[in-house]
Every structure is written in C-alpha cells, then in structure tokens.
C-alpha cells in the first residue's frame, strides 16, 4: 500500500465533508474517486496532496504518517482542475519549475524538460507562452510539469473537465498509457462514470463524504452494493422487491428466478435491472407488460421509457418501437441483481420524471460545494 487513509474526517463550518473515511491505495494502481458534486472526492485529494490537514484521522505514505508534512516535502504531485500553469513562465520554464526547486544541475534540467515535452507530444513548444496554447496543450504541459519531478503518486483533479468530448477520449487513452509506462500510482477524481469505467483499475464511489463501494469497474457495474451506486454508474431500473427464498424474488407483482441467495425469507430488497439487459418480446411472452411512453434514438440503440403498472422503466434495444405500443418484458435470471436495502432505497431508480435535460441539471460540471470549501482554506 502506498497511501493509507485511516478514519479521516473533515468539516468546514461544522458541515461534515468527509465522515470517518478509510481508503488504501495500492502502488501502481490507477484509482478513480467517483461521485457527484460535493461528495468529498476533491477534499480527499487535497488531503493526500497536503493542502488540507484532516480534523481527525491519519494519512500514511509508505507506512509513515504524513499528516503534518507540507506539500513541498511530499512525493505526490497534482494536476489541477484548471491546470494552474504559471502565466509568467513559458512552456519549458513551467516544466522546469519543480526541477529548479529541487536544485538539479542546469544541464540535467534542460535534458529532462526536453524529454518530458517529447513524452507529451509538445516537442518544439519550449519557448511558447502558456497563454497561447489550446486547452489540450495546456493540459499536456501540466502533465509534463507534474511528471518531471518523478512523483510516486500523481493526483488528477477532474483534469479533462475543460476539454471537448473528442479530445477528452484521446487524453483518456493517453493518460492511461502514461500511467502504465511510468508505473506511477494515479489517483483520479471525476464525476464522469464513463471516464472512470474506461480508465481505472479500481473505482471508489463516494457520496456525502462516505465511500459507497470500492471495486474494479466490472464489480462496480455488475454488482453495485446499493441503490446509489447502481444509479450513479450507468442507467438502472431499481425496484422494490421481496426475496421469497434463495434464487426467487418478487417485484412488480411477479415472481422471478434470479441467481442471488443468502437473504432472509421475505426480506425486502432493492432489485436492479440494467436497461440493456431487458428483452422486448410480444406482450403474451413477457412476464410483465408495459406501454412505451417515449422513444429516443441514441445512435447505437434506442432508449425507451416504458410504463409498467405506473412504474417507469428504462429499456435500451436496437429495434425500433412505436410510442403507445404495448410490449412484453422478459428478464433472464442472471440479469437480475439483488441488493440489500439502504438509505437510498426508494429515492432513486424510477424514470418517471426522466429527461436528458433533467439529468444534466442534476449533474453539474462544477464541484460547487467543494470549491467554496477550498477557497476558505487557501493560504
């Protein structure tokens, strides 16, 4: 373990940001902290970087407690949300900054800066001013600057947030490559679940200052531990159900065969079914019947909202359907995922007020709550 957080708590103005958080990060892993605005992910990063001291709990680096170690003494470097390049220095001077602070010989600095700029495909940009660079190029300078000092751990705070979609996809691949080649531990903060799924070795899902689940992308997607995780990672229909016995669950008024066991008899549970795992069949062949209330073409597939006894389901399918049609719904046992009840139960997972616009509104780009907290803390 390269970094260990033990029972870390932080509060700003008596508002708890992190609640007794414990997290271990393995050397050379690509770990993503994923969660909505204000979930505490940026605060966690700032604690590891040393910009913030926890109110309670300890931070260990290589087994040594580093709670009060100032940032400049940590073998940890950060890529900031808006890059934070030094505007009065040119590209090469920016990359050389950390090396100069560490008092390396001039020739070595020059050689190293040259190599770093080549690594991020910015050879020949040495003397450009950073203001003249595009967002993607600034991003690369920030990466080169942070990697130049050979950190053991690189912290990335929503580094791709300001880039457009196409560039973001390219940079995702590039970052992953850099991580694998350099063998540096990456701790990556994002609210973009797709980004998290495609880049990470380990995802840490956070909400309201607590870790909801830690696991590989596949674990998190296939075996969400509660309704929050199921809803936040991908789309989910989350229904109220009752375990009749092992391998048998009843929801939407119908008993289904499933692959889960180990619940008490008649235990109330949350049932998760992913929209892409549902088959649309003729009404007579389905265990459930519903009416299509909306249909959206998404390119690869269609997205339908289907009304089943008043509960709105989301179903994705490659075949077109007409709004108003009655369809049958078939679900294979292995597509049914059972979760224990949590405080999120019943609050999410129904698509009755769903629209794309609504989704965007509830998922803003800025970590507003955390940002305010940061401003208070800055020296």
């Amino acid at each position, binding site marked *: 373990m390269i970094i260990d957080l033990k029972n870390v708590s932080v509060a700003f103005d008596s508002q708890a940001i992190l609640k007794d958080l414990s997290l271990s990060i393995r050397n050379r892993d690509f770990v993503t902290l994923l969660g909505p605005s204000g979930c505490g992910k940026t605060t966690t990063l700032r604690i590891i*970087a040393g*910009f913030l001291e926890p109110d309670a709990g300890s931070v260990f680096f290589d087994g040594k407690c580093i709670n009060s170690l100032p940032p*400049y003494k940590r073998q940890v470097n*950060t890529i*900031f949300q808006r890059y*934070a390049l030094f*505007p009065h220095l040119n590209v090469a001077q920016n990359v050389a*900054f950390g090396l100069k*602070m*560490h008092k390396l010989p001039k020739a070595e600095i020059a050689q190293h800066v040259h190599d770093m700029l080549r690594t991020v495909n910015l050879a020949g940009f040495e003397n450009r001013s950073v203001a003249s660079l595009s967002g993607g190029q600034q991003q690369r300078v920030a990466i080169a600057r942070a990697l130049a000092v050979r950190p053991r751990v690189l912290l990335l705070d929503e580094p791709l947030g300001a880039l457009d979609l196409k560039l973001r996809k390219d940079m995702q691949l590039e970052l992953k490559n850099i991580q694998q080649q350099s063998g540096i531990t990456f701790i990556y903060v994002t609210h973009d679940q797709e980004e998290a799924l495609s880049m990470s070795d380990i995802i840490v899902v956070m909400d309201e200052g607590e870790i909801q689940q830690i696991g590989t992308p596949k674990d998190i997607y296939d075996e969400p531990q509660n309704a929050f995780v199921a809803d936040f990672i991908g789309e989910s229909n989350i229904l109220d159900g009752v375990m009749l016995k092992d391998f048998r669950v009843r929801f939407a008024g119908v008993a289904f065969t499933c692959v889960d066991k180990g619940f008490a008899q008649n235990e109330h549970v949350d049932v998760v079914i992913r929209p892409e795992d549902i088959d649309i069949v003729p009404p007579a062949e389905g265990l459930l019947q519903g009416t299509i209330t909306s249909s959206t073409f998404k390119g690869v597939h269609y997205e339908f909202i289907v009304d089943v006894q008043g509960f709105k389901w989301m179903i994705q399918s490659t075949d077109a359907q007409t709004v108003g049609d009655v369809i049958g719904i078939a679900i294979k046992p292995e597509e049914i995922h059972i979760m224990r009840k949590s405080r999120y139960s019943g609050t999410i997972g129904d698509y009755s007020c769903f629209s794309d616009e609504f989704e965007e509104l509830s998922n803003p780009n800025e970590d507003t709550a955390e940002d305010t907290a940061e401003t208070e803390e800055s020296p």
Partner: protein
Amino acid sequence: MKNLQAKHRRSLLLNAPHLLWSIIFIVAPLLMVAIYAFRDRSGSWTLDTFRSLFTDKESALNLLFIFRSSLWYALLATAICLLLAYPLAYFMAHAGKRVQRNLMMLITVPMWMNFLICTYSWIAILSERGGLLNLLLARLHLPEQTILYTPKAVVLGMVYNYLPFMILPIYTVLSKLQPSLVEAAQDLGATRWQVLRKITLPLSVPGVISGVTMVFVPSVSTFYISKKLGGNKNQLIGDLIEAKFTTFSDRNGGAALSLILMVMVLLSMVFMRRLSKDDDGAYVAG
C-alpha cells in the same frame, strides 16, 4: 457603407460629452502651458524663458538642486510606500473577508478627508513646541525630535498622503491571484519563501508598477506638502512653479518649468511601461 457611416456618426455623438470635457479640461490647459512656455511677456514666440532659467550659474545650480531634491524625495517616498504597502497588501489579500473589509475602510478613510487638512494635522503632530509627538516623547522621557521643517517631514507627508495609492493596486493584483498557482508551486517543491519569490512577486509586478506610478508622479510634482511641512529650506519643483505663478506673476517661467517637469514625468512613465512590458501584464489572473 452607409450603415458604417451612420454607426460612426452615432459613436461620435455618444463620445461627444467626453471629448468636449477632455478638450476643455485636459488638452486646452496643456496647450496653454506649452504656449506660455514658448512666449515672452509681450506675447512673441521665443526660447528665452528656458534660456533665462539657466543663464547665470547660481540660478541654474539652484534649479538643478531643486530638481534633484524633488526627484530624490519622490523616489524615497515611493520606495517607503512600496516597502510598507506590499506586506500590508499581501496580508490583506490573504486575510479573512471581514478583516479585508475593515482594513480597506481604514486605508480609504484618510482619502475622504481633504489632504490640506491632513497636512495641517501633521503640523500639529510634529511641531516642536506642544506637538503631539514631542509631548508623547517627553512623557516617555525620550529625547525630543525635530522633524517639522526638515526633509523628513516632507517625505513623511508624501508617504502619508499617497500610501493608499500604492496599497490598492497591489492588493487588487494579489487578491486576484489564483490560489491554485501558489498550490501548484508548493506541490512542485517550492517552500513558502520560494513561492513568494518565484510566483507571487513576479505575478504582482503590474500592481507594483501602477502603484509606483501613482505615488511617484504626484510626489514629484507636489508643492503644498513641502511648503507646509518642509518650511522654506526644502523647496521642491512644485513650490518653485507655484511661486513663479503667484509671487513673481511670471506665467511664462512657471509654464516653462511645468513643461520640463511634465517631460520628466512622461519619461519616467515610459520607463515604467518598458519595465512592465517585458511581461506584457497579460498574465494577471482574472
């Protein structure tokens, strides 16, 4: 084409009040200064006014001496202002919101008072007999100080009057500095002192430059402060110009001196611009 002309005419119309104001109160007086400087009492064009300033050795030396002390006092006042203002502005920019508001109040309150009154107050404080300062020193059994009517008092008056003009621009620049830049520097291994030297200081240069300009220019041309606090021995160029116009009613001589002073000020401003141009001033975060 027609559209463009109409647009042009409209913008001219909108600018008219400002243009008129500038012409009447800025351009015209400057022109008059220039005209007076190059004319004699009878109104004919001549360079004699300038020549007469330097004809006899004594008055030329006297004039050079006055120019030198004006420049010297102004530079001294500017340097003291900078040394006082920078730490204060730095502290303010990093203090809590309430402290910032209160300090801002304290700094701007003296600016609301007429500066003649401020200067008179300094006479009351510094005067040798019955002055507040010496009363206080006597109470503390410390030796009395003679400050009034010395260069010290003149520089003190300048610093007191113009200090806010140094604090405010530096404070503005420092408070707009992105905290993440400081964090990035710390993150890359810079100690507090290195952050100050490598990041904060260079990024606050534009504020320093405008503060220096705003303190130096009025200091070098002031006449009231030196007259009231400096007595007769510490005449500055501003006093001399004032005396030319009032005591000697020599408008042409006064205008000529004003013109020389103006050129000096302009040259120093160009120099300042040069200094800041290297960095273009474009990097101020905001």
